[in-house]
């Protein structure tokens, strides 16, 4: 389908585009551009040294952004309130996807997590990314239903919402992808909190998270490698060859950037590929080394601007559903950003989550841009 196939559509595109929140669009565009340069910086030397196309990752990353951009635009086309109708379908697809990844032969394991579905041609998708959207929209829908009045959600509503969230969360937990579970849980708690549900739920859920996390480690539900990641966070010398090594290298790479950085494409740590997964989960180390405090601080600032603007949109709408979707998406992005950048700087334990809008990776990029689309959608329909 081409959106340029007739004039009516083109006009509507122009019209809509003009009405998008500019600050939101600008901050994400800036992050996308910087991210693209960083992915290129992280991979060009490496691929060139192997005699491969140095622009391989760059090209694919740009394609991912373009596809994601179309998805984002698509998301803004229909009134978000009508999106509710599709929510069960998206939720269902996500759950099916999450089940498929567990089936040997269909799902593939990368870095210890059974989280990907491989398609012929090397194309892989990560259903967990889809699940994030499904859960955010799903529970927002439940908690905002029949409530455009000032009445708050009942315990029953909260339980229903939790049930909807619990199925995909459990499936992600067994992959295991603890990082994503934490992000989704944060989004769920943020949505429930903002929905006006009884405070005891928020407090209770936070308590549950602490107790649950502790039990999971103790009962051995959490894989050894995750325990190792946790230990090496506490004591980076515990496991110098793998996890601890990665974290130490990551910190050194960021720290060595100093105030102004080594210059784009000129980071010796980056070019020497001392940090594994540089183009995906550890993309921020490239920013740290090559762009320095000024450049990586700018990235943090862009994220902050994005979140603050999204909060403004959430506050401006009179529609609880729209507000909850915004808060869910913000909490998702914010926690994912915090987990990812915090991990690269040794602030939080290592988890395998990508940096929104910047890391290389299709599923994540698509989901992020759809998330952006959702907020823009709310903005467009707030009058």
């Amino acid at each position, binding site marked *: 389908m081409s959106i340029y196939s007739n004039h009516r559509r083109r006009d509507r595109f122009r019209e809509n585009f003009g009405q998008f929140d500019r600050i939101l669009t600008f901050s994400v565009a800036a992050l996308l551009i910087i991210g693209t340069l960083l992915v290129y910086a992280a991979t060009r030397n490496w691929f060139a040294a192997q005699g491969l196309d140095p622009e391989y990752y760059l090209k694919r990353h740009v394609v991912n952004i373009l596809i994601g951009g179309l998805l984002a635009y698509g998301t803004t086309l229909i009134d978000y309130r009508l999106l509710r109708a599709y929510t069960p379908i998206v939720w269902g697809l996500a759950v099916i996807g999450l089940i498929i990844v567990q089936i040997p032969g269909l799902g593939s394991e990368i870095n210890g997590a059974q989280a990907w579905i491989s398609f012929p041609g090397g194309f892989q998708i990560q259903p967990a990314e889809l699940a994030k959207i499904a859960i955010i929209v799903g529970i927002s829908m439940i908690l905002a239903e029949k409530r455009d009045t000032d009445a708050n959600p009942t315990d029953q509503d909260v339980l229903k919402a939790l049930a909807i969230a619990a199925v995909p969360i459990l499936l992600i937990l067994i992959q295991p992808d603890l990082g994503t579970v934490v992000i989704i849980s944060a989004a769920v708690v943020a949505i429930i909190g903002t929905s006006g549900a009884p405070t005891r739920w928020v407090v209770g859920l936070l308590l549950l998270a602490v107790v649950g996390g502790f039990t999971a480690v103790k009962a051995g539900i959490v894989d050894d490698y995750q325990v190792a990641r946790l230990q090496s966070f506490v004591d980076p010398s515990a496991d110098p060859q793998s996890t601890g090594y990665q974290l130490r290298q990551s910190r050194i790479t960021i720290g060595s*950037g100093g105030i102004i950085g080594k210059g784009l494409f000129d980071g010796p*740590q980056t070019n020497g590929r001392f940090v594994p997964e540089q183009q995906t989960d550890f993309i921020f180390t490239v920013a740290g080394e090559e762009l320095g405090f000024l450049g990586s601080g700018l990235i*943090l600032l862009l994220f*902050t601007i994005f*979140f603050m603007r999204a909060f403004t949109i959430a506050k401006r709408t009179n529609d609880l559903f729209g507000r909850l979707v915004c808060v869910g998406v913000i909490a998702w992005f914010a926690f994912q*950003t*915090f987990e990812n950048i*915090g991990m690269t700087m040794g602030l939080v334990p290592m988890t395998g989550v990508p940096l929104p809008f910047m890391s290389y990776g299709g599923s994540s990029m698509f989901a992020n841009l759809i998330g952006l689309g959702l907020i823009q959608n709310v903005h467009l329909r707030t009058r």
Partner: protein
Amino acid sequence: MSLRSRLNLVIVQALIISLMLALGGRLFYLQVAAGLTYQDAALSIQSRDVVNPAIRGAIVDSSGIPLVMDRPGMVISVDRSTLDKLPDKGVVVLARVAKLVGKTANNVYVITRLCGELPASENAGCWKGTRFQPIPITRTATTEQALKVLENSDLFPGISAQSVPVRSYPGMGGENGAHVLGYVGSVNEDDLADSDKNYFREETIGKDGLELQYDDYLRGKAGIKTVIVDRKESVTKQSVSTQPVAGFNLVTNLDVRLQAATEKALKAAVLRAKSAGGRADGGAAIVMDVNSGKILALASYPTYDPNIWQIGLTQKQANDLFSENSGVPALNRPLQGMYAPASTFKSVSVVAAMNAGYDMNASYKCPSKVLIGNREFANFESKSQGTISMKRAIAVSCDTIWYQIAYDEWVRDGGLFPKSGLNDYFFTAARGFGLGKTTGIDLPSEASGRLPDRAWKERVYKENKDFYCNFKTRAKKSDLTPFLIEVARENCLDGNMLRAGDAVNFSIGQGDTLMTPIQMAQLYGAIANGGMMYKPQVARAIIKPNGQVVKEFTPEVIATNVLSKKSSKFLREALRAVVTEGTGAGAFSGFPVSIAGKTGTAEDKGRNQDGSAKADTAWFASFAPAEKPQYAVVMVVSQGGFGGSISAVGVKDIYTSLFGVSGGKVDPAKEIFPNGVPSQLPKVDPKNAKLVKP
């Protein structure tokens, strides 16, 4: 929107702002506050220093003839980073190259392993450097072998051939010089731990002899190429590099021709002693300029081929260097061998006696034996010489005169119960000549000999009292003879006391007295020059490759007036008489240069490995010409027998070369130093140096 909803929204917003602030704070810490620390850490991760060793300076003799120099050698080396990528980790290639250079596959495998890669019990010879440095298999490859490697890179992946400097010993005068020159070797962990030296792991450094003593000058400054590597250690970028600075050349006081002659004379003396049925397990010979302390030749026997250090020691060679059975060739006997000086020590006794007021022109009785206490001390070979002059007594090496004098002086000092303010003329004289202390020669690991004075006795007694007092339970069964038990009983009672026997033995250089040959040379040098004690000096100057003089070593006086004009005059005459009419006359009969010297035939109370008693040590200490001394020549052959026959002849051989004696006459054309010991620095050009044969 409900109030609670709105409130919670603000809470979420505040939470997210705080998360972003936490990230910002951490980022500030890493990049700004601790940025420099992390920059250093990153640099140490990425950068590798590749060391390009400097050309090592040459060691040349006083006329510029090289004793040792770097020459181009061919090294075949292994690049581990290439081999490790092969499916079999390069095992086949290593076996192939081992066959090419004539080594065993296992040997080559082991020497190309990093030391940490093999268990400690199997890693002898392992590579002490890093993986991305070429690991040498041999430095003595032929051009043919090198070409084979270079032309068949498909058969020899990761193997390279390259010319490198190798230490070589031209031996232009026929000299060996292994002991005085020393050798070079790889830096080891102890060297690296030495914070005074800034060694690089890949450097070759001096390990012994002059190579060690003057290593800081000879070594030069290695060039460093800093490369930036990636995680797989492949070089991504070449960074700064410094060019190696060639080491300085060392000019010595040695003369290759004299060194060769000295080595030859020493070897001949040892072989002569052997063919006479002696054991003759080693020896030393020294030629010194008495007016400056310059060491003109320094020989030790047995010796070894210094080239073995370059080819790489086999286990057998390493063992042989230090084995008793092969005579410990590693021992540098001129300064590490300690021998009882015996009659050569009488020169010191003369000084002691003169200080004590004995008249050197008077006559003394030289009976066949002297009774000291209840013990008889016999003259050498128990011969009576009647009443003779002191000069004659030195010439014929009468012992009994010295027994009597030493005993009388011992009694005068209070005997077993020493008076306060004792004279101790003999010890005082010996101390005046620096005995019991190192000479300070510019070579490493010099021994100090032993001066068995009262303090020494006291110290030894403290250490051994327990043993002597419990001799019957502590000693070996075989040592429990009535005589040894009696000796132990005496030692237990008053082993700290200087007994008459000790004093008497000391006067003829026996008992516990020990001297190194270099101390002997210094002693006779001082007698010859009238009382100046020079520090024996091998090095003459340090010169840059461009000829610029970095440092000159001038003669160093460590003591003046160690003997009076009178004693000096008397000793010169008496020592001349040794050669003209005494114990040295046989060796030097008809020799055209006037030699003065003293024989020494020392008892050694030690035992050989097979339990047999050690044979006598043969000494000859001398200087020449007697009237206007220029050179001191000392030779010692341990277990060599008579000093007058074995060593005196050896010394005569050295003088023969030194003065160019042929057909009973001095031939100035054959003299090694026709114009005296060189005082001018030579032109140093080791590659083009030409030897003028005398």
